[in-house]
């Protein structure tokens, strides 16, 4: 009723009438609001929540589905989820599991059995499904059912990423076989899992409501509903947060200072599963010359980019794999700006007067600011950078098909498994996602080998060696693994895994 009062004071007759009408509406709106709910910004709307096909909305999938194993709250340590027992054979080729009894699927689809596990995993490698996750299960032969609740996952080869990003993540989601057979394509927007939340309602482009699953077998969260709003623009969602319409939202890195001074707000700074780098295509002169690449490495001011384009928030990366991910190269050399050395190297490469080159960027401020800083940096050693703006969706096509030397800044979203990080610079990916068009046979060999090495230490060594190769060849200029910032009010205590929201562990604090 505060609204009507403030209007009354102003004595605007017309507005007053409206306020009276509408304030009654607000009472109605508030009256039904007895459930404990949390409102949250969702960066982009969901498209398909079938775990065989979802390429956006990983956070949601984490809340909807159970896997055999799951990540502990806010950590990358694995614990049993739907599995009561879970064992990997010594050769890494057979995984035996036993499900907990009494795990129920959402919306009355019955109890989870080994049949559902078999169906969920084998479906992903079924060529007819054409699943985006087929590679995650690439060595799966079949799942053998040994009892109502038990079975064996039989692999043709061990696969190191299986226990990092396959079984505990999206492609390891166990869905209801009965529901999928009944719903078919409609499963995409009517997902049936057994997680602590079920999809209560989805209005495209407007809201997604996750409702607490009352028959959830584990500890039920104390939030009854999580309302998610697909608000693309962070500035807009900051306004909504300030107004109190959202409990949690991602904010732009620029806004961290503003929120840190507010005692009613918790700021969460998360490292992202990404790498941001300056790339150039190695196929064309002058970038085919290692001395040119080395010169760029001494001329580009990475710290300036982090301060100017990333608001100084994330740490600088000197190699590819981020801290906390297997294969992080702690002692990677850092190349600070040294213009003299850069000029020497350019001269050695046969470009004493520099050269002119195109750098492409999207209109995303991060890309634009980075490109502009690079342009200024390189001008000092005589390299003239012409920035060309390209719409985001067209960017990939341009960078993949260009037939002249270009430079670019790019960020790439990754997963918790290092295999997925190194994959994009292999020769196989040239013409696809290896925009550098860089190719190194030793690197390729190590990438293949590391993917099937179950010994973590050996695997780590291989990933570090791969990064050393890239460093020696000055193949790329790493900037940072990036950062994301969230704010939450004191009502809600959010939990994150990497930069994913682990809604199942969120709590209302009262």
């Amino acid at each position, binding site marked *: 009723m*505060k*609204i009507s009062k*403030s*209007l009354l004071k102003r004595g605007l007759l017309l507005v007053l009438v*409206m*306020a009276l*009408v*509408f304030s*009654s*509406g*607000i009472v*109605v*709106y508030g009256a039904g609001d007895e459930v404990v709910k949390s409102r949250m910004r969702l960066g*982009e*709307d969901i*498209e*398909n929540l079938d775990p065989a*096909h979802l*390429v956006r909305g990983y956070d949601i999938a984490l809340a909807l589905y159970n896997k055999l194993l799951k990540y502990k709250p806010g950590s990358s340590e694995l614990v049993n989820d739907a599995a009561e027992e879970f064992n990997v054979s010594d050769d890494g080729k057979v995984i035996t599991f036993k499900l907990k009894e009494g795990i129920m699927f959402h919306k009355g689809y019955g109890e989870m059995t080994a049949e559902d596990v078999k169906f969920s995993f084998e479906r992903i490698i079924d*060529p007819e499904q*054409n699943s*985006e*996750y*087929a*590679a995650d299960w690439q060595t799966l032969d079949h799942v053998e059912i040994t009892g109502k609740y038990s079975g064996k996952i039989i692999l043709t080869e061990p696969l190191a990423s299986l226990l990092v990003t396959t079984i505990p993540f999206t492609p390891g989601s166990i869905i209801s076989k009965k529901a999928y057979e009944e719903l078919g*394509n*409609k499963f*995409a*927007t009517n997902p049936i899992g057994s997680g602590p939340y079920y999809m209560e309602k989805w*209005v*495209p*482009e*407007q*809201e997604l409501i996750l409702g607490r699953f009352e028959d959830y077998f584990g500890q039920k969260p104390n939030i009854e509903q999580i309302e998610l*709003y*697909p*608000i*693309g*623009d962070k500035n*807009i969602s900051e*306004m*909504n947060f*300030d*107004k109190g*319409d959202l409990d949690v939202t991602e904010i732009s890195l620029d806004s961290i200072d503003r929120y840190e001074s507010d005692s009613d707000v918790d700021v969460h700074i998360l490292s992202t599963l990404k790498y941001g780098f300056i790339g150039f295509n190695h196929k064309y002169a002058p970038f085919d010359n290692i001395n040119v690449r080395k010169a760029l490495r001494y001329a580009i001011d990475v710290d300036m980019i982090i301060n100017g384009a990333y608001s100084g928030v994330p740490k600088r990366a000197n190699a590819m794999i981020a801290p906390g991910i297997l294969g992080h190269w702690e002692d990677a050399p850092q190349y600070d700006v040294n213009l003299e050395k850069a000029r020497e190297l350019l001269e050695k490469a046969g470009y004493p007067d520099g050269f002119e080159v195109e750098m492409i960027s999207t209109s995303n401020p991060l890309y634009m600011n980075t490109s502009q800083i690079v342009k200024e940096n390189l001008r000092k050693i005589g390299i003239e950078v012409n920035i060309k703006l390209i*719409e*985001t*969706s*067209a*960017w*990939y*096509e*341009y960078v*993949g098909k260009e037939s002249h030397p270009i430079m670019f800044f790019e960020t*790439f*979203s990754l997963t918790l498994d290092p295999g997925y990080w190194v994959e*994009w610079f292999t020769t196989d990916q040239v013409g*696809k*996602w290896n925009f550098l068009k860089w190719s190194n046979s030793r690197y390729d060999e190590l990438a293949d080998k590391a993917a099937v090495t179950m010994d973590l230490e050996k695997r780590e060594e291989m990933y570090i060696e791969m990064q050393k190769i890239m460093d020696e060849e000055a193949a790329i200029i790493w900037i940072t693994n990036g950062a994301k910032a969230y704010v939450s009010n004191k009502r809600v205590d959010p939990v994150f895994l990497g930069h994913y929201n682990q809604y199942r562990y969120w709590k209302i604090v009262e």
Partner: protein
Amino acid sequence: MDQLVKINSKNIVYKGGVDDKLMLKYILRRLLVTLITVLGATVILFIIIQFLPGDPATVILGPRATPEIIEELRAKMWLDQPVYVQLFRFLYNIIRGDLGTDVLNYMPVRTLVFNALPHTIVLAITSIFIASVIGIPLGTYAAAYKNSLADKITGLLSISMIAIPAFLAGVLFLLFFSVYLDWFPAMGGGKEGDIISQIWHLILPAGSLALGWIGYLARIMRASVLEEMTEDYVRTARSKGLRERTVVFKHVLRGALIPVIAVIGVGFGNLLGGAVITEIIFHRPGLGTLIYHAIQSRNYPIVQGGLIIAVLLYSLVNLLADLSYSFIDPRVRSD
């Protein structure tokens, strides 16, 4: 002003008196023109979409896509077929009322579009309503008191309003009325099935979209009233001893409204364009938001389905605006 001249010349054509047959013929002709316009626009849009850079498979699926998946997606969007086959299938399906299927989640595009459409129509109509209710009296008042201080202030205000783009007005309204004063909600279209909540959510977006139009309508109305005052019948009315207020509000207003209606008709289309940004700022559901996101993700069936409905809507509104002149202008009526 172009619009004004055009409309007046149309009036002249029918000035001699319009019988019902002529009117029917006119309506049929306009319907035919509308149909051709829609068809033409659809074909042109379809072709333009073909030239959008960016491979949808790459944009939609990212690095997880295998060649087989890309192939499947392209087939789902008919991109593996020649453009004329795609166009033909598209037109054929539209005639059958089938706008296609969202390639990502198999939802019928028709459902998505028709769920979004009412929100946009309501937003546009409310904006026009607000703009008319404020702009038309403002313009009439300014004309009636031409060159007075009030007229000058109104003029200044109108120009200022025209100069503020809808997106800026949206953000300012949001900051001031919603975040700072906390009078209005900041996001969403309101609770489903709760009319009052929906109206409540509509005021700021409609207001910000209407702002420029208030100024615009006020200017046009002023010019139109002033022009109308030079007509002979006004002199006659005055010579009959009618009060100036009666002359302006009872007689002149009717004639002066015609160009305004024409502008509103065309403006409705522009409003649909402005609604895109407004919908995004206020996180409102609507056709604009739907098409915008679909273009970003290159979800062609939604882009095409959404655009054709937008074109249809635009043409229909123009048709209605054209037809409505005859009902408003006494000179167009048969007498």
